[in-house]
């Protein structure tokens, strides 16, 4: 939903804005794009989507393991593409759109190259080593890139490497289901890594601003950390190898408290607070649901349903109050 869009429509409904002027009002308010905004959008879309298609084509090509092409030709193809992408990044600069897209493609191609090495020479390396080596190989590019998307790609590679390290069944671990049922120690490390990355990002973003000041990147990190923390507590509740009162509760409570302090007391970020409320609602649902399932009492199910409705409604009301308070502040 969009504040300006809703306001304009409500003014037109109330008759204080001529209805025939609605489309023009949307353009003047910046809700709908003008010609220059369209051109800038199309330029970015075509560059990023074109780069993504070429990078995906390289991945598919190596995965196809085309026997008619010799090993040197394969290496020449992938390395040639990698060098070309780096050349574009160097030529156009890391602050230009083509330069940023080219560096991102080069980072993906590095993974393709490492996979090709494993495919051609049958190194026998574990899959986690591919992701770990990939993360190490592009670390310098990521560090100089000033690109939130590239940093998130790097953190995702490290997350996958950690999960794979603790799993022998690598193929299953890469999928979403594999991630969900990864060993708990792997999930704890992923949680700690993402919380640390979130804290550092917020600290640097506040201190330096610039490209670090974007909100979407820390929100992605918080979503990953929050999902993993919620999952670990849910595992404790439903007893996946642990008692219903396992030790996950303590770090979970600390995490929730820290989120509240960081995004309600220190500053206000409604997205983070909405995630916090959702996590609490999910944990309450499982905490109350397990005894209800064990006893199969109809009244218990009704009570839990109403409790969840109450929790969510209270959370929604609180978030609206915080939002209104934020809009009212200078």
């Amino acid at each position, binding site marked *: 939903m969009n504040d300006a869009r809703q306001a304009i429509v409500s003014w037109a409904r109330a008759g204080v804005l001529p209805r025939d002027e609605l489309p023009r009002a949307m353009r003047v308010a910046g809700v709908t794009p003008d010609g220059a905004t369209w051109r800038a959008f199309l330029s970015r879309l075509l560059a990023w989507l*074109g780069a993504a298609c070429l990078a995906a084509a390289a991945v598919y090509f190596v995965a196809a393991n085309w026997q008619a092409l010799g090993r040197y030709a394969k290496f020449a193809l992938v390395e040639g593409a990698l060098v070309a992408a780096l050349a574009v990044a160097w030529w156009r600069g890391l602050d230009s*759109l083509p330069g940023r897209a080219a560096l991102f493609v080069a980072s993906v191609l590095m993974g393709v190259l490492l996979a090709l090495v494993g495919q051609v020479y049958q190194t026998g390396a574990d899959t986690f080593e591919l992701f770990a080596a990939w993360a190490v190989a592009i670390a310098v590019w990521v560090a100089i890139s000033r690109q939130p998307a590239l940093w998130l790609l790097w953190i995702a590679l490290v997350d996958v490497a950690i999960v794979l390290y603790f799993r022998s069944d690598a193929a299953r671990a890469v999928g979403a289901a594999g991630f969900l049922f990864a060993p708990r120690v792997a999930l704890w490390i992923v949680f700690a890594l993402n919380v640390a990355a979130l804290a550092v990002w917020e600290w640097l973003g506040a201190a330096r601003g610039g490209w670090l000041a974007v909100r979407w990147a820390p929100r992605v990190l918080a979503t990953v950390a929050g999902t993993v923390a919620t999952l670990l507590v849910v595992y404790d509740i439903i007893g996946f190898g642990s008692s219903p009162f396992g030790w996950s509760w303590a770090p979970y409570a600390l995490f929730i408290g820290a989120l509240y302090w960081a995004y309600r007391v220190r500053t206000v970020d409604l997205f983070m607070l909405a995630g916090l409320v959702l996590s609490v609602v999910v944990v309450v649902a499982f905490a109350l649901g397990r005894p209800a399932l064990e006893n*199969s009492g109809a009244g218990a199910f*009704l009570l839990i349903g109403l409790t*969840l409705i109450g929790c*969510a409604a209270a959370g929604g009301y609180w*978030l609206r109050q915080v939002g209104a308070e934020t809009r009212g502040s200078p």
Partner: protein
Amino acid sequence: MIPAAGVWERLAAAGIVSGTAPPAADDPSPWYVTAMLGVAAWLSALFLLAFAGVALSDLFRTATSMLVLGMLVCAAAIAALRVAGNSVFATQLGIAASLAGQALVAFGVLDGGARNAVSWAVIAVFEAILVAVAPQYMHRVLATLGAAVALRMALGAAAVAALFPAAVAAAFVAAQGATPQRLLRDSLWAPVSTGLALALLLVIPFALLESLFFAAGRSAPFAGVAAWAGTGAVACVLVASIGRLLREAGIDWRSRTGMWALAGGILLSLAAWPVPGVVVALIVLLEAFAAGRRVLAGLAVVALLAALAHYYYALQAPLLVKAAALAATGVVLLGARFALRLARGGGPEADHA
């Protein structure tokens, strides 16, 4: 999200309004608060359904009783939603009860078998009616999603699931638009288009489910024709969408810009023919950007990346052919960007990120 603050002053400066700014009447909840409430309502509905299943277990033995109970629950929930106003608790209770009622209706309709296309079509119509009669934003999103899911299952059962992306994309384009009449009905069409965009994200999980539950449908003699027709229809929807966006921007399609835009759409549809999911996501992205709906645009980007990833597992072509198709699409896109840059003079500032 674009804040409302200062909008009135900008409109006044442009001579569109005059006087002092009246307060905006609509609920200003950001999308993530609405989404949180939607997920919580789903969870609550599961427990309400469990309550009904245990407490009223006798009623679950016949399809008729489930249908009647479900419709009564839905009617009560919609009545609650219509009088709920700004009460968060009443709204949440209404949505959760409605979801439980919808599940009961679905169980009743599907009692004769989950592979019956007509049964799924009936559920889709029921959900569409709920979209029209219940005024709450999140309820409309969820009911639209329910209607789309039921439509997808109906098409899957009829072995023409390949038509689903085109059907939803066409509905999405129809729900968009910048005419005054359309904008005044934003409270209906905005949640409908959000629900349809979410349904497009579900195309991939649907395909996986279908391979488990509708294996017979895949070998139907007209499944191949449906796949071609579906991809062709997606291309037509893209071209129609570009045409409408041009018209709304006041650009004649016979002008140089108009011809370039339409030709680009056709070329892209041809290049991405084996990956129709990419074209569908692009349709949503373009329409969402044109309407200034950034969250929808974000959903479209997720759908686009998912389509590229899912293409890897699609069985209709070997990986080498897929790599060639993707490379061709990439070259077309980068070529189009180069042409765009040339057309506007291509100064260095044009590329500055």
